[in-house]
């Protein structure tokens, strides 16, 4: 019997983009956060170049405030696939006096990551940084191109983006510029989860329902941790929670959930009335929080 490849349009598009990156750039890197989107990127990259190995390194910008489960998972994945992992620490930029640690109730190292990222781009002369951002996440991201040119300050010129037509991606840049590449731009949260389910991709345990010491602030469930500032009257309780999105501890809120398998997560998301970034503390700073961070070089 003849076998016909039935294409998954989104998967095919992402693989096409990965191959364009490798063909058009000298020194690409995959920005790896340990979250489900970047894990999905790793699987897609594997498929794009098989039977060859993934032809670029992974870069993790470590805030030092990660969930330990994410780091464990990262190291296991890197070892299993024989990947080249580069880690750069926000702590180093703080120690060097390049950035100052935020203080107070909402302090987070989320904003500080940008400096470490830009330093790493300069250090390794990366010309393309592949990220797992999706257009459905947030309205400023909905405006983002697949190949998004940044100047040597990492800035996004949102009002003057390069037109992108058909599949014709233009990655030509000047020295010092770099391009942010988003292979899963057109995927929704549900697309990612459905893909993880279909492909049986392993993900860190914090995505599944578990018991965790937490407290509630502004209607969001925060992790009780030495990294997260907590007022005395913010009471810590053990709750059954999971994470829908994984940044570091200071910017990612949990959701109450009993979903302990991928299938249950998929059905939970299908019926959810809250968006994924509804649990991102970093987006709540203002209506234009994401656009502002992107202009400054955030991914």
């Amino acid at each position, binding site marked *: 019997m*003849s*076998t*016909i*490849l*039935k*294409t998954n*349009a*989104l*998967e*095919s*598009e992402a*693989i*096409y983009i990965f*191959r*364009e990156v*490798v*063909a058009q750039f000298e020194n690409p890197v995959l920005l790896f956060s340990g979250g489900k989107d970047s894990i999905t990127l790793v699987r897609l990259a*594997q*498929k*794009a*170049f*098989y*039977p*060859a*190995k993934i032809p670029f390194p992974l870069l993790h910008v470590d805030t030092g405030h990660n969930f330990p489960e994410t780091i464990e998972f990262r190291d296991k994945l890197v070892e299993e696939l024989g990947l080249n992992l580069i880690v750069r620490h926000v702590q180093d930029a703080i120690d060097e006096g390049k950035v100052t640690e935020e203080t107070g109730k909402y302090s987070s190292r989320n904003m500080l990551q940008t400096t470490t990222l830009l330093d790493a781009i300069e250090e390794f002369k990366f010309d393309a940084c592949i990220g797992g951002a999706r*257009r*459905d996440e*947030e*309205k*400023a*991201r*909905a*405006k983002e191109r697949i190949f998004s040119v940044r100047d040597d300050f990492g800035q996004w010129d*949102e*009002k003057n*983006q*390069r*037109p*992108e*037509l*058909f*599949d*014709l991606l*233009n990655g*030509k*840049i*000047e020295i010092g510029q770099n391009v942010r590449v988003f292979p899963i*731009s*057109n995927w*929704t949260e*549900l697309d990612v989860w*459905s893909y993880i389910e279909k492909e049986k991709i392993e993900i860190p345990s914090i995505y599944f329902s578990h018991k965790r010491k937490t407290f509630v602030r502004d209607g969001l469930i925060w992790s009780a941790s030495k990294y997260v500032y907590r007022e005395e009257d913010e009471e810590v309780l053990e709750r059954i929670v999971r994470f829908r999105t994984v940044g570091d501890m200071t910017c990612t809120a949990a959701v109450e959930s009993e979903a302990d398998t991928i299938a249950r997560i998929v059905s939970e998301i299908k019926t*959810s*009335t*809250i*968006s994924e970034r*509804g649990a991102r503390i970093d987006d709540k700073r203002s*209506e*234009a929080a994401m*656009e502002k961070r992107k202009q400054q070089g955030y991914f």
Partner: protein
Amino acid sequence: MEVLKIATAGSVDDGKSTLIGRLLYDTKSLTDDKLEAIERNSKKKGYDYLDFSLATDGLVAEREQGITIDVAHIYFSTRKKSYIIADTPGHVEYTRNMVTGASQAQASIILIDARKGVIEQTYRHFFINNLLRVKHVIVAVNKMDLVDYDQSVFENIKTDFEKLNAQSSYAEQEVTFIPISALKGDNVAQKSDTMPWFKGESVLDYLEALKPGQEEQTAARFPVQTVIRPKQDEFHDYRGYAGKIYGSSLKVGDAVTVLPSLTSSKIKTIEFFDQKYDEAVAGSSVTITLEDDINITRGDVLVKSDEVPQSSKSLTAAVCWMDGKALVPGAKYEIQHNTNRILAKIDSVESVIATDYSGEDSSKNQLTLNEIGKVNFKLSKNLFYDTYADNKAGGSFILIDTQSNTTAGVGFIG
């Protein structure tokens, strides 16, 4: 799941954002927190209705001015399909963004305000849909609630529009007229009983029935993106050509010719990750190996040996200009055609084409930002190409400014 890409064009006043908001709302694709944010910001601006454009206009400058500047991508899904809407601006100064949005689209929605009828902007939207050969066009006559759901208003607009359609450069285009009220939800996701005289489908029902994957089969084209050479003992002599298939399927055993070298071989394997297939359909990103060991690099194209396209060192194309610096004869640009890049020189600008169907102006010898014109090119090398009407992938290209590196224009080979 099947993915359908749609482009919408129009200004805020046409109710474009309201239509998109309505589609999201009625397919339950708007989550509570996003809806609350829209409510909060609408109230803050003192509106007494929900302004869905606050959800789609993602940039500060857009929300300030109440206009759409750049393409936004919006996602919703039904049980049948995933939809991606490229929401593009309607103003003439953003024509390039409209072209960008339409270049990805399998279907397009043109909005007309029932009170205003066919206006200059409608001409331009339709013209671009002709030029880009978007197969399905829905002409949504909006704000029917404001004209008492009057059939004659709808029919008059339809008659006006059909006069435009008679001048279309794309006779096979399927144009469908639907009277709607985006605000009230009439004929958007559900058929409305306010207009019993309308026998057609709602906008969503129409989109649900489309099967874009099964139409527009053209000659197969396989532009090579990169060559995969694992350099591992297990795959010692492996040489796979990575790319995406356009036009129609490729099968193992197909006799193929490599462009531009014109060497021939047969497809030995079609691979996707660790699986091998006998056949792969258009749209698949695969890796192909050939029976013979021939020299192939990025930019080369595999075609079926009985479907070799024409080649030439010059070509004529309709160009939509997207750069602030005008296109003038003598200027050199890099043409990106599939995965290939070659230098090209502007020979002449034959004419500037009016986007309102009023004809061509051959008195100007340049193209400025957002203009569309017929341009003759001289190429530094022989290029194999299709006409855009025959084959979208083989008949389109972008022009890259060799100094600024920006994408300065797009060409449709005539």
